[in-house]
């Protein structure tokens, strides 16, 4: 007993070190399940994030306006013309959509929309430079759950990892834990897209022995991804590594979505 009492600082330090190592080990891959009090903490922090996020957006917006005023004026003229042209195209698309629906009905097909999009804003990101994630201002209260796909019109962003009542944490496609099935558009070859930890790069790995992939190939999600609906744009192949003997192909894919700058997203629930 005296031996223990005489060495308590050393023993406490050793015990704390073991507890800490255990904690790091247990949380190495993240924690998708939050305890009730953790959810309450996240819900109560959300308004603070929203205020700061709003101020950041405001600053960003006005700095951008001042910096790019003359360019924006010219761009505006071009865009107005494009809108007119798009309106005419949209009328034609409406017509074709109706035609398609009529034909499907005639053939006995049932078209069902599997995913309802929910618009959300990014209110915070990871404070770390090592592991990125985003926090959105929608949560369980809006019907979101872990696993829901998060997208923008440009392409895939990630999937919901953990939720509280008013917020959700999104694991981005560049996260080193992220992996999903995709397809090379040109050849239809199935591939796996893995996160590299870098915001501007994803890794492509083949799902079958022989695949044909080239620089410039477009990658979209496949039905086998299990997370994302089929056909969503992922990115473009920028480099192909055929390995030492040309049998272990891998490639670098640059995502279509600028993951560092996204502000609004859609959650497909």
């Amino acid at each position, binding site marked *: 007993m005296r031996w223990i009492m005489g060495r308590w600082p050393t023993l406490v330090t050793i015990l704390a070190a073991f507890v800490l190592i255990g904690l790091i080990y247990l949380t*190495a891959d993240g924690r998708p399940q939050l305890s009730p009090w953790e959810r309450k903490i996240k819900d109560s922090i959300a308004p603070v994030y929203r205020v700061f996020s709003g101020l950041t957006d405001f600053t960003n917006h006005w700095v951008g306006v001042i910096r790019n005023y003359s360019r924006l004026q010219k761009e505006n003229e071009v865009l107005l013309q494009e809108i007119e042209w798009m309106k005419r195209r949209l009328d034609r698309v409406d017509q074709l959509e109706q035609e398609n629906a009529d034909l499907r009905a005639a053939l006995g097909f049932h078209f069902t929309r599997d995913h309802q999009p929910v618009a959300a804003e990014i209110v915070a990101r*990871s404070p*770390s430079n090592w592991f990125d994630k985003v926090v959105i201002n929608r949560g369980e209260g809006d019907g979101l759950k872990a696993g829901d796909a998060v997208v923008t019109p440009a392409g895939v962003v990630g999937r919901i990892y953990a939720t509280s009542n008013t917020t959700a944490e999104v694991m981005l496609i560049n996260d080193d834990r992220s992996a999903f099935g995709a397809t090379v558009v040109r050849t239809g070859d199935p591939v796996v897209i893995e996160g590299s930890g870098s915001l501007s790069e994803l890794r492509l790995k083949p799902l079958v022995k022989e695949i044909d992939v080239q620089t410039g190939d477009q990658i979209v999600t496949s039905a086998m991804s299990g997370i994302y609906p089929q056909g969503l744009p992922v990115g473009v192949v920028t480099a192909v590594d055929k390995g030492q003997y040309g049998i272990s192909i891998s490639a670098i894919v640059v995502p279509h979505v600028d993951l560092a700058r996204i502000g609004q997203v859609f959650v497909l629930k």
Partner: protein
Amino acid sequence: MKKLGIVLGLAAALVLQSTFFSLWAWTGVKPDLVTVIVILTGLLHGLAPGSLVGFLSGLVLDYAVGRLIGAGAVSKMLVGGLSGWLAPRIFGDHLAVPPLVVLVGTWLEQFVYLLLAKAFGSNLPLSKGFWTVVLPVGLVNVVFAFPIYYALVALGQIPRQGGLEG
């Protein structure tokens, strides 16, 4: 007052890193203001306060990140303590000390974190991580060394001689 100021400063740093600096990042790297505060707390207050502030703020930051909870606590405790241990041994009033200690301390903290992440199975690339995160974060943090140093000095008239309290 001093303690409350440091706690409020750390909370503000955490929120700014999660919001403002995520969009205003240099070469994709945001400043690690929490580490700057930890290093300068060690420099101004000594080994024990530096280690304690480093451990607790690292733990909170790890929790906000959601992964490897404890890794940041270890790396920040290490640099906070080291900065506090070094403080009486270096010329604390010299103008070059705060930015230099922040630069070297940030590099060390980020490198220790990277090694811990690798040791616990993360896929982070070691050499790329060193060049694209460790080195630039150190340089970005130097920009904030003087404002945060003088804010900490101003807080409750903290003595300027580094580490004399510790």
